[in-house]
């Protein structure tokens, strides 16, 4: 019961922090319209863009945005705690750091999933009617599962981010590479074979496919199985590498 109480306390605290910046959540709802809408406007001058293609690209850009946020969550949290001088206290406290990390990640995932759903509703209704809206609601569970591998990946990279003095630039580089390797907004045939392989190893393109097929009513069980396995694999990798980072911090101190 102790661990559950700690988990609930971490989540409650994180909800309070996130609710202090309602502008950020509002931005998550409207930003996809700017990004997807902007590229659609540019594309429409050069070719015909129909609403089905727009809906598909909209989901793709959403997946890219949410993937970037989830990948940055763990590293950003650790970096802010370190810069605020709170990381030592967290590591020294009896609360297991994994409870803190997963508690904060679940809150972040819930918030961005909610923003995604609100953002997608008008598109789902406009293109696929009421059934589309229902399926968009159902994709919440799919998205929660699909974001977990990205959190694990971010946790795996957190050691690298903490070691860099100018971690903002490193996060910027990781973000740009992740966007390019997402495979969510373009046909994978456009990439060279070796890059295509990298895209297949990362979970973003399967998450994008799963959400799109769910919206049009053709979700394949293989997508769900892949996402569940990817969650297990990437979360395990993230937990293992974070464990090594924590042991290193405890042994050598926080610099």
């Amino acid at each position: 019961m102790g661990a559950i109480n700690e988990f609930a306390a971490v989540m409650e605290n994180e909800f309070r922090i996130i609710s202090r910046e309602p502008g950020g959540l509002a931005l998550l709802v409207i930003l996809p319209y700017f990004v997807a809408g902007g590229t659609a406007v540019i594309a429409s001058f050069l070719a015909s863009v129909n609403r089905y293609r727009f809906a598909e690209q909209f989901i793709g850009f959403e997946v890219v945005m949410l993937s970037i946020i989830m990948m940055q969550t763990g590293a950003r949290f650790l970096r802010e705690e370190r810069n605020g001088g709170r990381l030592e206290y967290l590591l020294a406290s009896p609360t297991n750091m994994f409870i803190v990390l997963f508690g904060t990640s679940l809150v972040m995932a819930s918030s961005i999933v909610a923003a995604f759903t609100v953002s997608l509703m008008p598109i789902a209704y406009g293109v696929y009617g009421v059934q589309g809206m229902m399926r968009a609601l159902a994709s919440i569970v799919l998205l929660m599962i699909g974001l977990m591998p990205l959190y694990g990946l971010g946790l795996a990279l957190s050691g690298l981010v903490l070691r860099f003095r100018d971690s903002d630039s490193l996060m910027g580089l990781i973000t740009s590479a992740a966007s390019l390797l997402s495979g969510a907004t373009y046909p994978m045939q456009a990439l060279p074979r070796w890059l295509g392989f990298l895209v297949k190893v990362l979970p973003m393109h399967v998450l994008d496919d799963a959400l799109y097929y769910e919206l049009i009513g053709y979700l394949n069980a293989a997508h769900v199985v892949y996402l569940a396995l990817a969650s297990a694999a990437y979360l395990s990798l993230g937990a293992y590498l974070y464990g090594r980072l924590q042991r290193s911090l405890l042994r050598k101190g926080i610099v």
Partner: protein
Amino acid sequence: MAGYRDRFSGRALYDVFNEVERGLRSLLSRPASLVMGMISAPLWLAFFVLSLEGYGLSLGGLTIQLLIWISYSFSLYSTWLWEFGQGMLDEHQDGVLEYVMGSGSSLFKHVMGSGLALLIYTALDLAVILASFATVFRVEPTIMDPAVFLVSLVMASLSLLSLASIYAIIVAGLRSSWVVTDVLQFILPAVGGLLPSEFSPAIRLINEYSPLAYPFVLMRESATGVNELGIPIQLQLAYSFIFTAVMIGVAWLILGKADERLRRTGSLGLR
């Protein structure tokens, strides 16, 4: 009196050059960060062009040339709003502005100096974008009129420098100014010459009547050799110059007011 004016303007120039040097030192003090920023640019570019292919486009020839300038224009807006505008707000939070002003400089000189240093970074950005397009898409970027191109690039950067500093002062008191910056980085380019006039009559109308658009349209025209607006280049240069001068003037006024308030109350902004 003439001697006093000479000494005053000489001192002002000296202060601005000091700020340029300080800005360059700051930029070059993090070479890893600079390199990572340079590498990110072509990755974003590739993502943008591939995403357009996601709409079923097949790109080539003049379209790619136009995309180069759309990408660079967006990069300019983004860099000046975030690195410069938000950077100013971060400097205030970190207490850097107070030290700068305590050293005898002013907000306007500091902004101009840092801005000129960032202009060098945006020129490097251009080189990276051109090299990326050449490598990834096997397209040779063209600049038909280098002299007009250079002048338009400087004017575009100076107008964005002024705009970003005015913007930073206006949003200084806001809790989530980054949200506003995130939205503006899409709206401003749309009315600021991002899109070629050939795309549609509506875009041409915006480019013709939006003063912010002129330097960017000139930049594209001097690169591609195509006069989008059908207005003589000399006239477009004159409009751009007048707009840039007005923006610098407004920035000088607003930064002057903000400077007074910062010295008096310690808060950045006008309220």
